[in-house]
Each structure stands twice: as C-alpha cells, then as structure tokens.
C-alpha cells in the first residue's frame, strides 16, 4: 500500500473516519447542538448543527459569529438568562428552560443544557449547548396532569356524594313526614319544615350533579355525541363563572350533529376558557359562547368584554406556564391545557381581538376527520349551514 503524505498511518486514518462520522452524526442528531467560543468577546457561535437550523429557522450563515442571544425575546425570563451567564462565567454546566423565538417570531419553550469544553493544551475554551423545543411535550404533560387532577377530584367528589346520599335520606324522609302532618298546615313552623325539605332536595340534586360530573370526569375515554351531552358540559362549565359575569349562548342548539367530542374534554376546554375570561374581566362583564358550522368545520367561539389580549401575546398565551397573573395566582396551565385538548381533537385554538374590544378565542374542529355523520344528515329546521 502506498503511503499517504498526510495520513501516514492506519491509526490516523481511523481517527479521520471517526471525525467525519461525528460530523455527520451531529448533523443527524434530533436535538439542536451549538458550540460557542469563549475566547472571543461576546462568545460567538462557531458551530450549529442542522437541527438547530430546522428548529429556529435560521441558516448557518445568519448565526455563525453571533452570540446565541438572538433567540431571546420579550417573553424570555431575564433571571434565567442571568443564571446561565453566572454559570458560564464560572465555567460550570447549566440546564435551563427558556422561552425562545424562531426566525418567524414564533415562540417556543427551549430546554437548554450547556457544558464547558476546555483544553488548555489545545487552547480550547468553549461551551457546547444542547437545545430542544419542548413546547408540545410540556402542553401534553400539562394536559395529562390536569386530567389526573380531574380524575382524583372525581373520585373524591364521588366518595363525599355517596356519603351525603345516605345522610340525606333520614332528613328527606322525616322532613317529608313532618310536613305532611295535617296540623302542620296551620302551624307557624310549617315554613321552617318546608325549608328543611326543600334544602334537602336541593342538596340531593347537587350530589346527583356532582356524581354525574365525577363519572364523566373519570370515563374520559368515552366519546359521546356532542348533541346529547354538550348542554350539560356547557351548564357545568358555566358554573365556573363568578356571579358578576353573565353568559350568553348562541347557535349551540342548532348543532344537532352527532359529533363525537368527549364531554369531559369539552367541559375542560370551555371551563378553562370561561375561567380565563372571568379572570381577564376581574369577575365583571359578559361572556358569549357561539357555535357555527363553516363547511365541515365546527367553530366555537368564546368572547369576553375584558381588556383583550395584545397581539404580541397571541401565540404566547397558549404556552405552558405563561401567565399574566402575579405569581401564586393561576397555574398558567389553563389555556395550554385547552390548547392541548383541542389539538387532540385535530383542531386549533387561537385568539383574536373581539369586535368592539375584548378577547375572542376560536376553536376550529374539522368534523369530517371525526365522524362522517357530523353535520351531514340533519333533517328539518335545525339543519346546519353547509
């Protein structure tokens, strides 16, 4: 074999092959990999892999030589950035989650793991970064957690309600017997005993509703026709509105389509949107729920008379843990959960400005993907507009 003037041994040939493999593997990696050079001022990027370009929408030419902070934006938590800077100054590894921005301006939740790369002999002083877009993962996680919470709540509610069912029996029985006594009609305490019976009956109705809710909350996989139980979901969801908020409902009764949307999920989506609206309006104002068919798409709209959502936040408000409320108030998961559920239906959840002020949340559910019956075979007056 003729000796190569540059690669003079099998060992160095193997090394070169490995270096080439590493380069290809790094570009094939499903996570973003970056290297920043700390020997220069402002630690410019000296390498980004293909996935970084795919995730952020930037080309290599646009980013090499620049500090990675171009990914940051208005929603980026400055305290987390500061923590990262301190770790880098000490040349320590650091893991953070940061709201970052793609070239299009679209925000994403970025999981960032950084580690120093140092070699004094080779005069290397750099940082390798691994970044992942975990937005969808976080939304799914939030949905799952919310679901588990609802299930636990359902079990708890069911236990209480059954105990109450038994305890209410003697109150209703004796109350009814006392109220039925002939002398009771005249007695001054007739009103008192009737109040006892009425309240016990009202309590029975509440336990029945709680049990119904608990059952639908537990049987989450059960898909039921929207037409059958949607009214119930809307009624339950409307309970989440404080007394100062009025609710108007339009078009929902006309949707006699047999669309299979999980009632518990519908309840959760509407409940979260209602709660969000009530919070935005400080508990005073009105909320409107409207439903229309546009071709084969069911469009649900929840609008409020609050201050509205600034356009720059239109995509951010669906991010997990995004909250405009002070810390400790609200989990920031409500809209993310709703978004995750609607996405699970194959639909979209967006927000826009309501005509005349306020916010309008739009849920679009393509029905042809769910059931061929949806909205197609209505006869008579309630036929949907196709």
């Amino acid at each position, binding site marked *: 074999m003729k000796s190569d003037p540059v690669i003079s041994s099998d060992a160095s040939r193997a090394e070169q092959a490995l270096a080439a493999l590493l380069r290809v593997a790094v570009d094939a990696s499903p996570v973003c990999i970056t290297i920043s050079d700390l020997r220069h001022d402002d630690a410019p990027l000296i390498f980004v892999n293909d996935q970084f370009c795919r995730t952020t929408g930037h080309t290599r030419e646009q980013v090499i030589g620049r500090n990675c902070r171009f990914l940051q934006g208005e929603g980026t938590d400055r305290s987390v950035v500061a923590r990262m800077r301190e770790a880098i100054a000490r040349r320590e590894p650091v893991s953070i989650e940061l709201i970052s921005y793609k070239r299009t301006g679209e925000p994403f939740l970025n999981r960032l793991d950084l580690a120093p790369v140092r070699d004094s002999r080779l005069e290397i002083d750099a940082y390798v970064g691994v970044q992942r877009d975990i937005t969808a993962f976080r939304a799914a996680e939030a949905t799952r957690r919310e679901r588990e919470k609802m299930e636990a709540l359902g*079990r708890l509610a*069911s*236990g209480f*309600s*059954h*105990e109450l*069912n*038994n*305890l*209410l*029996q*003697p*109150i*209703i*029985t*004796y109350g*009814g*017997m006392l109220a*039925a006594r*002939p002398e009771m009609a005249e007695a001054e305490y007739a009103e008192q005993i009737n109040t006892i019976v009425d309240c*016990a*009956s009202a309590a*029975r109705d509440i336990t029945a509703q709680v*049990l119904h809710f608990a*059952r639908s909350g537990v049987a989450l996989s059960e898909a039921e026709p929207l037409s059958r139980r949607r009214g119930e979901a809307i009624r339950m969801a409307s309970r989440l509105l404080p007394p100062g908020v009025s609710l108007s409902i339009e078009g929902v009764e006309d949707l006699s389509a047999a669309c299979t949307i999980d009632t518990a999920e519908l309840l959760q989506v509407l409940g979260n949107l209602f709660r969000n609206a009530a919070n935005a309006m400080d508990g005073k104002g009105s909320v409107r729920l409207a439903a229309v068919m546009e071709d084969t798409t069911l469009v649900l709209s929840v609008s409020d008379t609050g201050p509205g959502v600034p356009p720059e936040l239109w995509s951010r408000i669906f991010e997990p843990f995004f909250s405009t409320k002070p810390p400790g108030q609200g989990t920031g998961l409500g809209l993310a959960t709703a978004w995750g559920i609607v996405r699970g239906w194959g639909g979209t959840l967006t927000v826009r400005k309501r005509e005349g002020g306020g916010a309008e949340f739009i849920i679009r559910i393509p029905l042809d993907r769910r059931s061929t019956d949806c909205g197609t075979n209505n006869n008579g007056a309630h036929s949907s507009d196709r």
Partner: protein
Amino acid sequence: MARILLIDDMPAVRKAIASLLRSGGHVVTEAGDGKAGLEAARAGGFDLVITDMLMPKRDGTSVLMELARTPNRPKLLAISGGSGALSEMDALRLASLTADATLAKPFDNATLLQAVDRLTGAQATGG
C-alpha cells in the same frame, strides 16, 4: 297493608324509612345487617323485603341472591346511596338482576310508598 322486612346498616336511615312505612300502614321488621336480615327472612311471613346494597357482614347482593332462590319468595326492593368504591348506579344495576325494583337514595316519601304499593299490590292505609 304489607308485611315488610327492612334491612339497612345505618340506624338513622333505617329508622326513618321504617317510620315512614309504618305511617303508610305497613307492618315493618327491622334488621341492621345482611346476616340478621336473612335470619329474619327465613322465618317467613313477609310480602316484601327492602334491602340496602352496601352493608357489612352480608351485603345486599348476597341477601338478594339467597332470597331469590327461596320458593314463594317475597318481593324484593333494593335501595342504595352508593359508596366511594361503588356508585349507587352500579350497585342497583347489579341488584336489578335479582330484585323486582330498585331505588336510589335519597328518595322521597311518595316514591317509596308508591313502589311498595306497586310491588305488594297493597293499598296504603292510615296516615
């Protein structure tokens, strides 16, 4: 007038229902659990057995199964408010395999008295 055996483990509930049935003119024997209820039932002489479903010792299912097998058996009415482990709906669905009728607790007075009349063919007397 019907002769009724009432089986329920919650004393307040049992006494209230018994007292309602008596006010409806029926003759009521009370038992505080399934085992005592079955012993009373074996002595015979009842037109109707009303049993709770979720009870200690022998539960309502076991009471209903045993009574359903006896010749000239009394009519069987199952009642339940459910528990954290088993909803009243499930308990009564189970009961309906053997019972002649079921009622979810809490029921109102007219509902129970009408059910008793329907099952026993008796007209309530008295007040």
